[in-house]
């Protein structure tokens, strides 16, 4: 662990140009806009937001799977430092070993025609990390054991496995090249509750064992609350709030974060009127509203919110928020809780 973040993004934007229809002009989809973010080395970093918030696009950009339109992103793991914008071919090859992705759907991510051994070994062969078959087998067995798969499993094909086992195979495949930085994109969303906890515990123990840094992308705030130590909240391509998990969940600053938290269905049947409900839906990223992107749904929006976009500012230790009125609203909440 070092103090320098493993990923640091500065004013990062990712735009896609949509082909216009007949006579229709080309449109620009601003999937991610001006994101500044540090992912501390060794952290379990959560990235949350509704669909269309740009969380997956941002995660993929850190893996060099999306082009960065503007801004910078740096990677540093103690051994190498890369500017993700300007990687040589050799560097990119090396970076692919160091940064890996765990997919959402363990049913779609594994080839049905390959044995589990071949699925896990493929990255080693493609990247040329091992020279002999014995060496490959050795490495596959090692990582499979860490992901609680046994030798018997390695000979079989993916169809013979349940969702939880498949996700363990996906994880083994992602970790076989010994990466330092892993993006887990909705990696437990497709799993049943009883299995989900098992995979989360596995990710956590692998982190401790292998010294990994995770970017954990999820729409499920209760999962993020349990597993992550830092959380960043995105809305329509913007970062609206970032904080250590405990701070974010005990004292959310941004009205959007508050709304997301109050929308989680409570397990208490007597708490059926769970606070303020967010009206409307997320606007289209091809035609975002002016000013604060959240103003169309925000119950506290005033004139300035409709014209001027708020900057991300410090509201506490490591706690940043992008809202014109966070101070005012926080004072209001304090006064309320005092009475």
């Amino acid at each position, binding site marked *: 662990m070092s103090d320098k973040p493993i990923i640091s993004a500065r004013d990062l934007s990712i735009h896609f140009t949509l082909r216009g229809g007949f006579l229709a002009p080309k449109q620009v989809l601003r999937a991610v806009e001006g994101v500044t973010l540090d992912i501390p080395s060794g952290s379990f970093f959560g990235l949350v937001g*509704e*669909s269309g918030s740009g969380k997956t696009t941002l995660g993929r950009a850190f893996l060099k799977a999306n082009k960065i339109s503007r801004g910078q992103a740096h990677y540093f793991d103690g051994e190498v430092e890369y500017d993700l914008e300007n990687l040589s071919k050799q560097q990119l090859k090396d970076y692919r070993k160091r940064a890996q992705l765990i997919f959402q759907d363990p049913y779609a991510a594994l080839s049905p025609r390959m044995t589990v051994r071949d699925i896990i070994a493929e990255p080693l062969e493609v990247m040329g990390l091992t020279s002999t078959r014995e060496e490959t087998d050795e490495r596959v067995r090692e990582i499979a054991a860490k992901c609680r798969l046994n030798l018997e499993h390695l000979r079989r094909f993916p169809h013979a496995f*349940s*969702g*939880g*086992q498949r996700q363990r195979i996906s994880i083994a495949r992602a970790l076989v090249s010994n990466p330092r930085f892993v993006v887990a994109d909705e990696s437990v969303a497709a799993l*049943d*509750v*009883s*299995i*989900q*906890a*098992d995979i*989360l*515990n596995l990710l956590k123990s692998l982190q401790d064992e292998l010294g990994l840094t995770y970017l954990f992308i999820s*729409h*499920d*705030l*209760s*999962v993020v*609350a*349990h*597993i992550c130590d830092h959380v960043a909240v995105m809305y329509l391509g913007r970062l609206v709030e970032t904080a250590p*998990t*405990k701070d974010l*969940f005990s004292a959310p600053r941004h009205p959007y974060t508050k*709304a*997301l*938290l*109050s*929308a*989680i*269905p*409570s*397990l*208490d*049947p*007597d708490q*059926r009127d*769970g606070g303020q*409900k*967010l*009206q409307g*839906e*997320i606007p289209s990223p091809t035609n975002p509203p002016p000013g604060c992107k959240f103003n169309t749904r925000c119950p506290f929006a005033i004139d300035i919110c409709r014209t001027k976009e708020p900057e991300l500012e410090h509201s506490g230790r490591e706690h940043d928020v992008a809202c014109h009125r966070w101070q005012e609203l926080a004072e209001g909440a304090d006064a309320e809780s005092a009475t």
Partner: protein
Amino acid sequence: MTLLSANNLTLQFDTDEGRITAVDDVSFELSPGEVLGLVGESGSGKSVTAKSLMQLNPSNAVYGPESRITLRLDGNDIDVLSLKKASELKVVRGGAVSMIFQEPMASFAPAITIGDQMVEQLMLHTDMNKKRASDVSVEMLERVGISDASKRFKQYAFELSGGMRQRAMIAMALSTRPKLLIADEPTTALDVTIQAQVIDLMKDLVSEFGMGIIFITHDLGVIAQTADRVAVMYLGKLVEQGAVRDVIRNPVHPYTKGLLNALPKLDDLDAPLTPIPGDIPSPLERPSGCVFHTRCSVAEPRCQITVPPMTMTGDNHNFACLVAAGEKETA
């Protein structure tokens, strides 16, 4: 008075690999205006159970000889499983029973406008003429909170956002004023903020229309927010049922307890997540005795042999577990 009762429902599928049991001796009842939550993980048989209420299961489905589903409408009992002809089935397929599906994009026809689809089913199931059916449809779209309803009426499913499509689906399902609504994971594909809106909407509509609802979901939080009673299923078996407060606060069956422990809870972030050990068995290798014994932490040798009967505990709270029943007796 009951609206619906399912008795000893058993359902098997004939497949190439043999006969698979999807639902095993399940019984439950539903009163008008009541919301029954049906919870379970994938493969628990909850969707198949709901589909048998409309006879929507594929043709390789074989119902057990003891299986009875009775729908009571205006004092008349309808034996749902005995219905054969399309004209007879109309009553459970859109007439008195409607269904909302998980993925609204897949349930609307892509090349027919939302409005035409709503009008079509209204004309099929009621004696409205086209003009009246259009008016009622637009009114329903407004009722479920779709702004600009007359414009949306003329649009196709792909032009609507996910949340709006699910609202349109609800509007369509409710426009025939069904007595029973089956909602199969209606909020699972939606974002959490939209899910909250749809849950609120459904609660309003239940109190307004007074129909019975079977709400299928894997999310116990959603159940706690919507249901009056809850039935927990595992591998085709009903393992516990009762009032939602009783089951969530005082779960008896080890599976229900396990599900609740596996859920991440927001009020205690440091609590460890406890998974249920093992994986859900394949339906081809159905465990003998209690189907949960392979993953149960309190299983005893007898659990592998004896199928546990439903045991009463407290008011209308049943469970099927030999070990818990023994504990209750000695306590």
